[in-house]
């Protein structure tokens, strides 16, 4: 299977019916994930990062219109009948969501839900074998006393333990792709460190490719090889983690990094980005970042720039060349 990427997204679009015609939440994104690699998708609320992933997994409400292409191991996911995608979801593709309390069924034990996930994709496995596999999985995500824990209900788990259980469930059928949507946002930092450490270890050991969606630049800095920055339903810049953090060519990426207070150095003055992200109902013509951009020119309000190679990164900005080189933060 070498050569073809694990996940290849081309011109993915997702629109919802709005009061005056369809509203596009995702407006044509291209992403590529190689096997066993981690791709970080960073963006603020409303940037379309979650909708994009839900779209290719067909987890959006049926009113959504989805177009474009998303090939998983060469297989087209967009337009695939639901019956078939259900064979892949939870088997070859595992998902982890932000809030593990609402992702679990409150009236079934954690063990029963993991067993269900196993038996759904492996009809032949006996209940007993599935149970011991579930206990094994809970142990593999470092849940103490997995035997007893399997018999408990989601509310008896702490936030961190619940997220571990969700990871165990996502890994139940040995997926080759894991989609993690803000997996640690609801957790305290010390627990977040435990969970990220666990995810990194498991992905490396098992050679799982991962799409990590987050608003936290710190989380992707340590986890992802490649990073895509999303704004207003589009990818505005992609590159390796180092390129994005040290050699960005996009004013939004630069602004995002400058807006974060530093933990390990004294910050004299934060540079805030003026204004607010565009609403999907009233997106400006041209570049959607233009109204907030300190470099905006009249031409930015007319043409929505395409992603193109500027120095090391792919950047969607008409004036990226002028920024190139000054995007350096700390080396």
């Amino acid at each position, binding site marked *: 299977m070498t050569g073809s990427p694990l996940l290849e997204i081309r011109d993915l679009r997702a629109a919802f019916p709005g009061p005056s015609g369809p509203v596009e939440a995702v407006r044509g994104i291209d992403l590529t994930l190689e096997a066993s690699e981690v791709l970080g998708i960073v963006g*603020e*609320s409303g940037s379309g990062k979650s909708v994009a992933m839900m779209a290719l997994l067909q987890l959006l409400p049926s009113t959504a219109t989805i177009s474009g292409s998303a090939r998983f191991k060469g297989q087209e996911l967009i337009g695939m009948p639901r019956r078939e995608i259900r064979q892949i979801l939870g088997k070859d593709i595992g998902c982890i969501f932000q809030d593990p309390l609402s992702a679990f069924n409150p009236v079934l034990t954690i063990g029963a839900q993991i067993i269900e996930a196993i038996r759904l994709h492996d009809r032949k496995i006996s209940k007993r074998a599935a149970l011991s596999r579930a206990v094994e999985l809970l142990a593999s995500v470092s849940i103490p006393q997995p035997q007893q824990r399997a018999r408990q209900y989601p509310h008896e788990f*702490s936030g*961190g*333990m619940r997220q571990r259980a969700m990871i165990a469930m996502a890994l139940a059928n040995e997926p080759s792709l894991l989609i993690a949507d803000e997996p640690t946002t609801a957790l*305290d*930092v*010390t*627990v*977040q*460190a*435990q969970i*990220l*450490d666990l995810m990194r270890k498991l992905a490396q050991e098992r050679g799982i490719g991962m799409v990590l969606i987050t*608003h*936290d*630049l*710190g*989380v992707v*800095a*340590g986890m992802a090889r490649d990073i895509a920055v999303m704004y207003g339903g589009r990818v505005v810049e992609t590159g390796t*983690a*180092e390129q994005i*953090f*040290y050699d960005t060519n996009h004013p939004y990426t630069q*602004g*995002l*990094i*400058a*807006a*974060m*207070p*530093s*933990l*390990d150095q*004294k*910050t004299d*003055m*934060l*540079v*805030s*980005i*003026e204004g*607010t*992200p565009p609403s999907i109902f009233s997106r400006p013509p041209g570049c959607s970042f233009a109204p*907030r951009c300190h470099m905006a020119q009249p031409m930015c309000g007319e043409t929505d720039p395409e992603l193109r190679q500027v120095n090391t990164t792919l950047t969607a900005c008409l004036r990226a060349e002028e920024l190139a080189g000054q995007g350096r*933060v*700390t*080396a």
Partner: protein
Amino acid sequence: MSDMTIPVLDVRNLSKDFPIGSNLLGTKPAQMLRAVSDVSFSVAAGETFGLVGESGCGKSTLGRCILRLLEPSSGTIVLAERDITKCTAAEMRPMRRDLQIVFQDPMSSLHPSMTIARILSEGLRLVGLDKKTEATRITELLELVQLPQDVAARYPHELSGGQRQRIGIARAISVNPKVVVLDEPVSALDVSIQAGVLNLLRDLQNRLNIAFVFIAHDLSVVRYVSHRIGVMYLGQIIEVGPAEVLFKNPQHPYTQALLSAIPLADPRRERSRTRTILQGELPNPLDPPSGCRFRTRCARVQPRCATEAPALNDADPGHSVACHFPGPDPTKTSLKNGAPL
């Protein structure tokens, strides 16, 4: 800097117990949960005291006790040299002008069917301004929080999250308070918006010389705005000191673990650092460990930690640590090489 030394808010030995359940007759609670335990700190005019800790450490309960939104179980709160701990509700009312709060979620703390002008005028009316001065004051407040004047006629739902939080701040400062408690004021905001609100808070403090108690879980945010910081664990302040000292030279193993847990937005340093990952989970606050409350997760634990609770002792002037074995993190050898985290 001279008035930084006279505290405008002084909290001494504050504790808060919550009753849990009740006995068979329903006359007494079955158990008491001590959410805040013997906390002392003070803030001077123009100073920001940051309170950090993870969920359940009691930082918000502490904030609410200071405002007497919750009744403290014991301890004293002195505001501008007046003990307000035992004030009745009527006596508290004039004091409220001096003591204000900003909540995390501006959507649920602003009245949805009042215009912004009306929301802001509520507080001003208590101060006793006439209609005309009230209108000028609202104009002035909107300018102070850097919002356009047409916001006054709008409703909270018409504003963005960042704008709403600015209104929450404008309302708090409208009555010229001496102290404002900010309870996670930016945690609901996106990074690009958060920076603007943080800068605004610093700017307002410089102009108006207000004392801030800044409660947050995000250490980098707290570092940016605070002069001094207190770190809380299970209801207690376990380390307190000037912001720069606390970040450069943390002495308590929990502070060190907390700093080490936060991912750095810097791939090279993030990938090369050694991380202390705390084992286990927060103990049950109904049954906290004997002695030092952190000992069940501490790498430096000794028999003494189980029998004797460590008191807050000075490590340096102004920097106190509640640990029997304080000191720099032994796993961090390269402190001087610019990589203390």
